[in-house]
């Protein structure tokens, strides 16, 4: 059973890509390794004041392993820097009610994170810092402390692409490209 275990960071609806990675940092090129790391350090720094820090001052990675969101996560720009910044910060999966199309696709193409959808509004049920476990194949999220769990939508064909590390790695592994 493939699982993701860790603390969750909870946000709400319409988290746009400017909040995930503000345009000021788009001078960083994700395929340059040190700039990839740097993108992680700025992940979610565009959130409104009042949110706890997602990445601690001076750190490059987040203490959180997952993000739970409401509707329309990743709306706005096509900047691939957005799923990359989250992935570089250490986020393994996002669980949202729905995604903006381009973010969802970029998350899969890059293999940076599993973009789970949930029929329930989990951002109302979990709070930042909760310890959770996601069963990837079983499409289920569990609150570690109490054992209560919620079904996620099956990822289907998406899961093996993310697991392989993105669309190119998957295509090679499965013989689509050489």
């Amino acid at each position: 059973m493939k699982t993701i275990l860790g603390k969750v960071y909870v946000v709400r609806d319409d988290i746009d890509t400017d909040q995930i990675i503000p345009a000021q940092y788009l001078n960083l090129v994700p395929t340059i390794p040190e700039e990839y790391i740097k993108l992680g350090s700025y992940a979610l720094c565009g959130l409104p004041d009042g949110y706890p820090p997602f990445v601690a001052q001076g750190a490059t990675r987040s203490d959180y392993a997952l993000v739970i969101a409401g509707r329309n996560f990743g709306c706005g720009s096509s900047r691939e820097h957005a799923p990359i910044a989250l992935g570089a910060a250490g986020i393994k999966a996002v669980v949202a009610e729905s995604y903006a199309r381009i973010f969802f696709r970029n998350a899969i193409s890059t293999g940076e994170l599993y973009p789970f959808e949930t029929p329930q509004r989990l951002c109302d049920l979990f709070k930042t810092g909760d310890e959770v476990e996601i069963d990837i194949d079983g499409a289920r999220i569990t609150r570690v402390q109490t054992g209560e769990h919620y079904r996620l939508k099956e990822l289907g064909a998406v899961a093996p692409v993310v697991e392989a590390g993105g669309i190119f790695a998957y295509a090679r592994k499965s013989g689509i490209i050489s």
Partner: protein
Amino acid sequence: MTMTVTEKILAKAAGMRHVQPGDNIWVGVDILLTHDVCGPGTIGVFEREFGAKARVWNRDKVVIIPDHYIFTADEKAHRNVDTLRTFVKEQGLPNFYDPGTPSYKGVCHVALPEGGHVRPGEVIFGTDSHTCTHGALGAFASGIGNTDAGFILGTGKLLIKVPKTMRFRVNGVVPDYVMAKDIILRIIGDIGFDGASYCAMEFTGPAIHQLSIEERMTICNMAIEAGGKNGIIEADEKTFAYVRARTDKPFEAVYGDPDAHVESERVYDAATLEPCVAEPHVPSNYALCRERTDVQLDRAYIGSCTGGKITDFIAAARLLNGHTVRIPTFLVPATAEVAEALFTEQVGGKSLVQLFADAGCEEIAPPSCAACLGGPLDTYGRTHGNEAVISTTNRNFLGRMGSKQSRIYLASPLSVAASAITGHITDPREFM
């Protein structure tokens, strides 16, 4: 089996007789657009995956238009443009519009059609969400990430899902105080910020075809602000005139079947539309200008792919003629062609450049994306405090123009100009 215009273009590009929403198909790409912000990462993916010696699939179909971070001291921004230059040289790419040279154009979504790279019936992908602009000329156009763009650079193909079509029909005649921006903000206000997620937004009806190509671009440009995969307006004589003036490349316009199935259809009467704003911090936050006159403003901004075209400046000039602005008013022409036209186009016997100077606007900035998306700290027009800005741009997200404390109100060039005169949100009819 009948198909919409979007489905027909995709079927053609996939070499299939018929496609339907939900089908996953491989399409051949006619144009791949990239810029300075996503180009270097796209090239990075291409070289990592296809090898340092790989060649792009088709040199003529790659168009590189640096536009985001051009007039800045930021060293990485300059390095990124240099990365594009090196790649263009290595690959021998003919379609590159290099900053600091006479070929420089400016904002890619205005520059691409200006350069004759947008043709009806074709498939365009770009590493920018506002690539949907180009549907205004009857093409399928959509934004993608660096990895997908790197894949296209190597193969000329992309696997995509055929979107459902949502149709928006605007009947009647557009009043002179209503602009394309008012039409699309109303639609987004009605369907919501994610109201067209994964869908094609097809705009049709006599009022849409009454609009100039530039105004149609404003509408399709903002399809993404409702989550749309593409925006599209079928080609007509205006489209052909625009395209033929800019390229002699052959193209074949594509039209949907009249009885094609659409997911939904909304019908508007243009006569009932009114000047409006989108209030902070989402583009669906619709309000009428005349009901928000209590909102005091610190700044007005006219620019970007949405609102920095020559038609946008002419509209603003008509309203500003003979008046003086009360708040700093920033003018950023989208492209060099627009900037030149500000000298040649006249309103009331004055060049636009003269008219804006007489009205007390800030000095006209060189063409680029500028403050539309904030950017490096020294970006022209960027917000740094708690400014309230009324702007012809496309996004009013938190922090979008730089500062998280500033508030952005999206509006048409006419409404921005009227509000610049009074210093608060103002319906342009007050000056018409």
